[in-house]
């Protein structure tokens, strides 16, 4: 009798109970609970991925690989479309912006798939971009099966054409060479080379918790400060040319080129986003070098 009153949703004093209290009161005492055995079936509780899902998933994984390693948005959309069509897709709709790709696929038999990928980091890894592009060609030509694709994608993600010491040398070479290119002598080039080693080292040290903008500003500040300190120690060096050589290292050349190419191909949203990123990075470089010049600019005077 008491239980019945409680399940009505009203308390004994006539006040209405809260929904949580009503649910609590509906729990039966242990002696009234009867366990009904259920049959265990062979079928899994989840729906297995359809062929359309597999095709779209593979195409998007390659698209992500291209986007993350410095490819243009137009190339990503084109690649995903081509792979889906090569595996029997009738209607493919792809939309990509620098941080996301989403696509829908309708197969010839009417089955559909929709999927989305978030892109969290974009780097300048042109060799991996080449590998992913080659993978998409292989898939479209039928030389690579869908079953083998995940292993090939994982392999492409690990590819490194150069060891770390060579990457360090590359950054240093570019700083040193551009100091000479813009009118400096070999000594100016050597000074810029030394600063370039430190700047490349900053690039090589993993920095997952530092945002790209902040990292560019720190790198520029360190590069500018070191260059000015070296020029103060060796007054025969032309500080402006050493600084020009080092300023070339953090300049976002690839992002600038991609922003233009995205805009040309009609992807105005992606192009504008990338251009905004380039302008912000250029601002960060200016801030970093500006701060270094304000702090250490008077040393050589």
């Amino acid at each position, binding site marked *: 009798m008491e239980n019945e009153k409680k399940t009505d949703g009203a308390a004994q004093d006539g006040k209405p109970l809260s929904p949580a209290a009503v649910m609590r009161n509906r729990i039966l005492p242990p002696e009234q609970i009867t366990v009904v055995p259920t049959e265990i079936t062979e079928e899994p509780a989840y729906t297995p991925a359809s062929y359309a899902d597999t095709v779209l998933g593979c195409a998007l994984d390659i698209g992500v690989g291209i986007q993350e390693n*410095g*490819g*243009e948005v137009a*190339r990503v959309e084109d690649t995903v479309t081509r792979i889906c069509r090569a595996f029997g897709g009738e209607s493919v709709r792809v939309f990509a912006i620098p941080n996301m790709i989403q696509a829908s696929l309708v197969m010839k038999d009417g089955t559909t798939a929709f999927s989305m990928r978030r892109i969290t980091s974009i780097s*300048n*890894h*042109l*060799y*991996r*971009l*080449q590998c992913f*592009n*080659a993978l998409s*060609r292989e898939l479209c030509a039928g030389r690579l099966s869908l079953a083998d694709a995940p292993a090939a994608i994982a392999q492409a993600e690990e590819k*490194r*054409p*150069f060891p770390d010491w*060579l*990457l360090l*040398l*590359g*950054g240093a*070479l*570019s*700083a*040193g*060479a*551009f100091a*000479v*290119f*813009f*009118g400096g002598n070999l000594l100016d*080039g050597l000074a810029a080379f030394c600063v370039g080693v430190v700047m*490349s080292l900053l*690039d090589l040290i993993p920095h997952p918790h530092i945002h790209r903008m902040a990292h560019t500003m720190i790198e520029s500040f360190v590069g500018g400060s070191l260059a000015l300190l070296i020029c103060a120690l060796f007054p025969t060096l032309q500080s*402006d040319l050493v*600084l*020009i*050589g080092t*300023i*070339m*290292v953090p*300049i976002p*050349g*690839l992002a*600038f*080129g*991609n922003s*233009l*190419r995205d805009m*040309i*191909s009609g992807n105005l949203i992606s192009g504008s986003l990338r251009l905004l990123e380039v302008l912000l990075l*250029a601002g960060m*470089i*200016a801030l970093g*070098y*500006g701060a270094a*010049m*304000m702090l250490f*600019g008077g040393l050589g005077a």
Partner: protein
Amino acid sequence: MTEFWMMFIAGLVGTVGFGITFHTGLKALAVSVFGSAVVIFVYEGCSLVTGELLSNVAASTAAALYAMLMARLIRTPSTVILTPELIPLVPGRSLYYAISSMIARQYTVGVEYLRTTVEVALGIAIGIVLSGTVDAILIHTGEKIKKRRAVRHS
């Protein structure tokens, strides 16, 4: 003349350096370095007869067309070739002088350098746009010819 060759070699070495930093594969890197030589020659040649903007337009058009052609030949994305080979055109010098002039409170000079930086960037952009348009026209024409041939054969 020696100065030019020194600058030329430095430009090529700089391209190699950037190519390594961008993890460009060896084959694409070799193609980029040759493209970089083309860029420097076109830029220097044009700067004898015209200003900063047009020289950059000419050099980046040549670079982008070369990259698109070579990308088809070696079956690689044109970005892989174009990015390192355009590096000698990047306006690092004017960007630096713009910053230093602003810090020295020489705003008029700073704005002038900033204008040059934007002009160079715009020149590179126009060059890429022009070559992109030429490439699109060539692809469209090629597809049309293929379709006509297919109709004739059928």
